[in-house]
Every structure is written in C-alpha cells, then in structure tokens.
C-alpha cells in the first residue's frame, strides 16, 4: 500500500527552493493610554453591536438589570471561578432570574444548555482595543459552550487587561511559551451574518446580544 504522507512529502522535497529567513514581523502595537485603550475598545465593539458598560463591585446587579430588560429567566455561569463566587454572593435573592451553575459535562446537560438556557456569563483574559475584541481562554472551570450557546452572553472584563492589538497581546502574554488552551478565542460582537443580500442580521447561531461589563478598579474612574 502506498503511503500518502511519504509521497506528498517527497514530491514537495523534489523542489529545492532556497531557504528563506523568517520574514520580519515587528510587533504591531500602539502607545495608547489606558483611557484611550478603553475608549477605542468600546467604540470598535459598539460598531459591531457589542454593548459596553462600566461597572464596579455592583456588577452582578447591573447584569441582573440587563437580563431582566431582555426577559431572561435564567443565567448559566461557572461556579468555580472567582466571578462565579462574586455573582452568587451579590445576586438578588428570590428574584425572577435563576442562577444555573454549569458543572456537568455537555453530554449530560446538552438539552438544558441548548433549549433552556437564556444567558451565559464568562470572564475573559483581556481585550483588544484596535478591533474591540474579547480574548477568551476557556478552561476546566469555564467551558467553551458557555460563551456560544446561550442567546445572551455577558462578559466581565478588567480594564487593565486591554491591550492595543492582537499582535501585542499574544506576544506580551507569551502564548507560545506558556502553551495554548484547547480553544483560544477572539470574540468581537454578537453572532452575525450577511449571507442574505449582504445585509447584516444578528444572532445567527451564536449569541444575539453581547454585553461587556468593564471593571476599572485602577483609577480609571471618570475616564472614558
């Protein structure tokens, strides 16, 4: 039996192009102040219909109000994360929006997740000012589908973690050195499509709305 791998590689090796040095690729970054990074992030995300609100310790209440305005009945979250703890502690008791801790593997909660979950909450690694993107590294505590399946997605972002560009982000955080998670993500706005007449429609397969709660404990208050 022929070995496709060997055959392909040997055909590719039959030509001997001169070895080329790795092309120069200086890190694209901007020296924006923290305020400017936040305002640019906000502007770029707003352009693709992502909502940004500035919050402090009362963020669960802001989230609650946002969900209630949209008629959500429940919120799925990652209970083992710091955010999850804060959420549990500050969530208004006895109110209409039920907290659903996400603990089970997808195999056992598939139906619940796809059919009966109105909103999902996640944290993020940081954000990118230039494009208004959130950087998510799903983890054991905070699985990937939490940011994808529920029709409403809320993210808590620490303003300190906004960098100017994606290039700066992955180099500064040494993604190669520390190793990538199974599924690193950039998320820029809610799900959308322009497949019909190039007209934008939101909420195709992923979330219809995206809310970013920006915590700015770092003396940023008053800015942006």
């Amino acid at each position: 039996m022929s070995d496709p791998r060997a055959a392909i590689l040997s055909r590719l090796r039959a030509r001997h192009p001169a070895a080329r040095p790795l092309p120069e690729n200086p890190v694209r970054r901007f020296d924006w102040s923290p305020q400017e990074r936040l305002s640019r992030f906000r502007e770029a995300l707003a352009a693709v219909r992502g909502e940004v609100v500035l919050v402090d310790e009362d963020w669960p209440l802001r989230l609650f109000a946002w969900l209630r305005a949209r008629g959500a009945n429940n919120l799925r979250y990652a209970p083992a994360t710091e955010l999850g703890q804060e959420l549990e502690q500050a969530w208004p008791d006895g109110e209409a929006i039920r907290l659903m801790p996400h603990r089970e593997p997808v195999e056992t909660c598939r139906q619940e997740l796809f059919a009966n979950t109105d909103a999902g909450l996640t944290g993020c690694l940081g954000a990118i000012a230039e494009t208004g993107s959130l950087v998510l590294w799903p983890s054991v505590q905070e699985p990937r589908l939490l940011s994808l399946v529920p029709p409403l997605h809320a993210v808590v972002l620490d303003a300190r973690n906004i960098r100017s560009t994606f290039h700066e982000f992955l180099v500064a955080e040494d993604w190669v050195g520390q190793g990538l998670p199974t599924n690193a993500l950039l998320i820029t706005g809610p799900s959308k499509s322009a497949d019909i007449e190039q007209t934008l429609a939101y909420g195709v397969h992923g979330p219809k709305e995206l809310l970013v709660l920006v915590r700015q404990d770092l003396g940023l208050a008053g800015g942006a």
Partner: protein
Amino acid sequence: MIPEFPVRVSQALGNERVRRNIRRTMDGLVLKRHKAFPDEHELAVLRRRGKLIRGHALAHLPDLLEELERNCQRNGIQVHWAETAAEGNALVRDILRRHGADLVIKGKSMVSEEMGLNHYLEAQGIRAVETDLGEFILQLGDERPSHIIAPAIHKDRVEIAQRFAAHFPEYPYTEDIEGLTAIARRIMREHFGRAIAGLSGVNFAVAETGTLCLVENEGNGRLCTTAPQVHIAVCGIEKVIARLDQLPPLLTLLTRSATGQPITTYVNMISGPRREGELDGPREVHLVLLDNGRSRIHGDPQLSSTLRCIRCGACMNHCPVYSRLGGHAYGTVYPGPIGGVLEPQLQGLDRLGELADASSLCGACGEVCPVRIPLPALLRRLRAEGVRGRQGSRVVGQGSRRKPLHRLIWTLWRWVNAYPSLYRGLTGLGTRLRWLMPKHLGPWTRTRSAPALAPRSLHELARSEGFRGE
C-alpha cells in the same frame, strides 16, 4: 452534463436577476474593502508582509508540515494525509463510521467542496448538513456556491423566502432578512444539540503550536468544532504557517480584503481535543491534510505563488468578468481570477484551460491580492502553455488547446513573414481583393463592425515615398 464554458457564459449573461444580485454584492464588497484600508502605505506594508510570510511557509512547506503534524499530535490531534480527493473522502467516511455517525454538521469549507464530500457521504448513507447560512440556503436547492466567501450572493431575499416556504411550511412566510435568519437558527439548533460529528475547514494551520485557526461571523463554525464528540478539519497542505505571531497580519489582511471587517466575530484557535477535566469540546480532533494536485503546483517556481492564496475572494470581487458572470458560469469550485489560475492547474489545461481566458487582463486582481499573487502574469502563462508546452513545466494538458487550424494559420504566417516576395505578393493581393472580405467575422463582429483593409498596404505606401528596404 455541464454545458460548455461559452454556453454557460451566455446563460449567465442572460440572467438579469442573478446579474443584479451579484453586481450589488460585488460593488458593496469593493467599497467595504476600500474603506477598510484607508492608509495606502499601511496596506502596501501589510501586503508585502503577507506575501513574505506565505512565501516563507511555501519555501519550507515539507518541514513545516512535519512540524505541524508533530505539534498537533503532541496536542492530541490525529493527523491524516490524503493525496487525492477520493482518499480524503474515504478518510472522513472511516472516521464517521467508527463513531457511528449518520449525520455530520459542517462549517463552511471550500476544500470539502473541492473534495465533493457532501455527495460522496450521501452515497455512503451519511447526511452532511451545511450550517453556514449561505451554504444552508444553497443546500436546500442542491446548488453550489457562486462565491468562495459569500456563497449565496446570486440569490435575493425573495428567492430565499420562497425556498424556505417550500421546505419549511411550518414557519410563517417572511421576506424579512432577520426573520429568515431566525428560521435558519431554529432549524440548525436541533442539529447542533444532537450531532455526533462536526466538520470544518481551516484558514491557517500554525506549525509552531499545532493550532488550527478558523474565522467566521455566525458561530456555526464554533458549534461544529465544539459541540459534537468528534471534529474533523479538512485542510489543503498549503495552509500552514510557521509561527503564531504571523497570524495577526494574515488575519487582518484576510478579513479586511474579504468583507472590509477589521476582524470577524469569531477567531477560533483550536489546539486539541477536550482535555482531562474539561466539560465540553470534542473527544477527538482529526486533521486531514489534502494534497490533490498542490504538491505539483508547489514544484513550479513561478506557479507556486498560486499557493500563497488565503481565500479572501478580493480578486473576484474586483474582476470585471466575475462581477458580470457570477461564479456558476465558471463551473468550478474556485471561480474568478484565482479560479482561472488554480483550477486549470488542479484539473489540467485540457479540461479547464479556457478559464484562463475569462479575464480582460485589466490587472485589478493582482493589485488587490493581499498576498500579491501575480494573477495576470499567471493567467498569461497558462494561456501560453495551453497552446504551447514549456520546458520543465509540469502543468497537465500543456499544448492541448492548440487546434489544427491554428497550427496551419501560424505555419502560413511564419512562411509569409520569412519570404519578402511572398509577403509582398499576398498583401498586394489582399488589398486588391479587399471587397471579398466577409462582413461577419464570428463573435468579433457581433458587437463591432469588421475592420476594413486599406486600398494600399503600408509597405506599398512606403515604397512609393521612396523607402527601400529600410
């Protein structure tokens, strides 16, 4: 049986509705790209970087593929190699069978189109469901994409509304785009919640980290690669890049050239199946590396630049021929200028050499290409090789487009120009007998008047002015 290219061209030109739909989209995409690159200098720097990064990857392709394989395997991704579309299809089928999957949900993948995967699987009793909104619309009517990034642009909302009404009578009729999108979302959710297997393409495969990068706006790509138990990624062998930090410049070139977006909604970087303790993600990730003629293209120093392509579609958006014909007239998976260059190389000049003629050589494609593929030069090369072989070239079907009549004409031309007396005699005869010249000269005179011969040739005039053999 697909009709001949000229027949398809006249059919396409005769369909006003499709022409209107295509033109509207093309004008929109051209404008969006233009606005996305406001700084010409930055664009020039970026395109140069894109070209060098892709060129570097191709110059080191076999080594990088091995590095990619090593790092993918270290991450737990199973790597398979396929020389042909048939081998690739069989690999996908075997994986699906092993998991007992009779249905696979698909994210948009041009390579899977190239493999003819959907029809193959169907014949094997496995249903492949397209989940990208545009592809979903097409699959309902068993149509093929007419554009590589906006597959259903030849259809307008009314046609789509009618198609939905015919297939899903349980939903109320709507021509509203949000409403149509919502119907598709609800139908697809059923599949996403249930499917065992998902399939996707790959935009960039990063050798250094063993990462598969996919870009999309809808979220269906993420669902196909995250929700099922097994994810199969099909990927042309040319899609590899050396380093992770090369992603940012390529991503921005890709999305801005394609749709004028600074970035897509989702950039999905997959570096392995579900790890111990994780609550979701596929249990298995498979990468199928497909050659299907690419290694032959790679062997040619000039034509290998074809493989730099990052599939943004800007060349077709800016092509005066594509924007009038639309993708279906080409009859191939990849239409437009890149199709005119790639398809004759993949399938042979004897079968598809005429696609290289579907260009006015205006040069727009070469000017907008984000990785600076010299498309007009490659089109000319393939035109020439279609009628005359070239030493050392391995393009299939060289010389196959040379017709006996052409051969005769060029032989006569050579004689006539080699013997001055013969030349003088014939041009003299031609001008004397010019009244015999037919008024209609095939397609040329359909929209033009036939050229008239002058009563006296330039040589005669020159001689009467006293020039002698100068």
